[in-house]
């Protein structure tokens, strides 16, 4: 086969895979809703608020911990999140109303 | 200011388009000032080379404009959840006074860039650069509009603040809003349907006649332009109603949403495609007799006419199909 047609074939194959990605994601999401989310009644009832990404640091395990004066606390009313906290305004929204 | 990837991408494209536009415009002015096809001097040769650059840039601008037009509408649609009162792109665009002008300019620029490329294509086929002045005057009209569009786009995104209360399409395009869009939406259905179908009929008939006989090109082009405007008004006035199956919902943007099968993309693509090519036919009309183009322009026009014809026919067929199979009946 001509090289140009080979390339076009390769590219359309790549495009096909690219278009399959959203479909795969969509399907995986549906499966995860069905399976994973019903996983643990106990966990659900605990009403957790945070992701367990890095467990040692409070500012990643529980960003919403409220200390107003502690290391890596960028602003007294900010929720903690290192290292991006210094780039983001503290969420003053809904707080300044009497 | 919304720091959302799509907004960033749109602003990036606007920036690139402006830079390229300034570049092309600068050489456009130079070419207008120093063009002398009879000379074989080095300056002239350099300018001739620049024409390649300008037309390359313009074709990139056109494709960027086309892609960013749809990305813009989709992004506006996507962002509606940030604004109270917005339910689709209509509300997002109404958040500040730059939204709609940006959209209208985007459409206009897309049409102009398309027409420019058509003229450029014809000019390139003539061996004596017959349209060079027309082409670069047109370019100098397009470039400021491109810059204005980018400026508006930046102003629009800069002015987007979440929690702004905006209007939804239901009120923007309602009869009582008193605005121009509202007036369009409140045009009487029957009259608009008559106008739309007769406009389409005249366009298609004159297109066919022009295609077969090569005459009445101006009529066709004018019909395309007028029908384009009528079709936009008709989308507001009655076509959208059939798609929404609601007698009072006149929004031109909800058509683009998933709930309606993204049918709006097909409608607008055919409408814009038909408009660009149809207007192109008219713009080329004065040059049918210009020396070297006399055998070329008619062939180009025939092809353009065919594209415009097919596009408009598709638009009409989709409309008719929906009018027949819609759950809504406006005219008993």
């Amino acid at each position, binding site marked *: 086969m001509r090289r140009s047609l080979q390339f076009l074939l390769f590219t359309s194959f790549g495009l096909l895979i690219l278009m399959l990605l959203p479909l795969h994601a969509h399907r995986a999401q549906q499966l995860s809703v069905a399976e994973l989310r019903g996983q643990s009644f106990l966990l659900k009832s605990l009403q957790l608020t945070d992701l367990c990404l890095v467990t040692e640091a409070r500012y990643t395990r529980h960003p919403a911990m409220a200390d107003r004066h502690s290391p890596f606390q960028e602003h007294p009313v900010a929720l903690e999140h290192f290292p991006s906290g210094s780039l983001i305004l503290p969420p003053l929204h809904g707080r300044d109303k009497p | 200011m919304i720091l959302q990837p799509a907004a960033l991408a749109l602003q990036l494209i606007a920036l690139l388009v402006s830079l390229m536009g300034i570049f092309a415009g600068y050489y456009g002015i130079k070419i207008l000032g120093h063009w002398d*096809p009879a*000379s074989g*001097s080095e300056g002239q040769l350099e300018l*001739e080379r620049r024409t390649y650059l300008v037309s390359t840039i313009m074709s990139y601008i056109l494709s960027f404009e086309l892609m960013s037009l749809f990305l813009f509408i989709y992004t506006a649609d996507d962002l509606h959840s940030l604004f109270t009162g917005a339910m689709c792109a209509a509300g997002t665009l109404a958040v500040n006074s730059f939204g709609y002008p940006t959209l209208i300019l985007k459409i206009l620029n897309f049409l102009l860039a398309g027409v420019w490329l058509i003229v450029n294509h014809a000019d*390139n086929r003539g*061996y*004596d*650069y017959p349209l060079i002045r027309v082409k670069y005057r047109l370019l100098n009209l397009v470039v400021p509009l491109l810059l204005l569009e980018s400026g508006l786009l930046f102003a629009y995104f800069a002015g987007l603040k979440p929690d702004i209360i905006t209007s939804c399409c239901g009120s923007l395009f309602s009869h009582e809003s008193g605005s121009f869009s509202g007036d369009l939406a409140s045009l009487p259905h029957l009259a608009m349907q008559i106008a739309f179908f007769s406009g389409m009929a005249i366009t298609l008939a004159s297109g066919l006649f022009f295609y077969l006989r090569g005459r009445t090109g101006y009529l066709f082009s004018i019909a395309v332009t007028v029908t384009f405007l009528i079709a936009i008004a008709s989308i507001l006035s009655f076509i959208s109603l059939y798609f929404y199956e609601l007698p009072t919902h006149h929004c031109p943007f909800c058509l683009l949403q998933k709930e309606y099968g993204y049918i709006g993309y097909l409608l607008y693509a055919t409408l814009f495609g038909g408009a660009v090519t149809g207007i192109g036919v008219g713009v080329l009309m004065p040059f049918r007799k210009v020396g*070297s183009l006399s*055998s070329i322009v008619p062939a180009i026009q025939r092809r353009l006419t065919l594209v415009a014809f097919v596009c408009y026919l598709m638009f009409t067929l989709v409309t008719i199909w929906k009018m027949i199979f819609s759950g809504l009946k406006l005219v008993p």
Partner: protein
Amino acid sequence: MIELSGITKSFNSGKANQFTAVDNVTLVINPKQITVFKGPSGSGKTSLLTMIGCMARPTSGRIFLRGVAAAVPFQQDGVEVVEITSLPERFLNDIRRSTFGFIFQQFNLVKGITVLENVMLPAYPTGEGRADFRARALKLLEQFDIVRLAGQRVELLSGGELQRVAIARALINNPSIIIADEPTAHLDSKLSQEFMTIVGCLKGEGKSVLIASHDPIVFDSLLVDSQVEMRDGAVVNSRSCR
């Protein structure tokens, strides 16, 4: 027939280092003949050939092509003369592609691709089907007896083979005029003779051949129909050898 009238080509015009490569040349070149441009290097032979071959435009003067107009796409039927000096590049190019075939001093083959591909190269942008011009290229290779080299890369070829590939390439688009610029400069006498034999065959096929050369094997060849002698950009002597 090619007619030149008052052809001048200057470089760097208006600047201090301005020089005139070709100075007011008026000339008629007959079709289906071998015409040799002779003169020392720097006499303007090459510049003149580039202008005839639609590669460059003269600063002033006009060039007419007669009888080759059939290959020009935009030309209307019945018009036999093309004035090529005021044409934009893309039209010059169309004429060049369909009317002229070029053989260069250094052969100018593209390295890294095969002989066959090199021969086919001028046909790529014409939009002709690949199978069509591929068959033609193979036929040309056969004609020059180098079909066994088709799949080889050009780096590995000998001087004589290179020359034949270059000639085959010049012929791929079936031109009516062949332009050769110092074709024998890098060849020994035997190969130069061989070249002239091939040129003779081409002439026999009805092609016009224009050669710039200061090689006696070329301009003293019995095949040559007319000679144009050049010096400092001007024609000093133009005569028919018949």
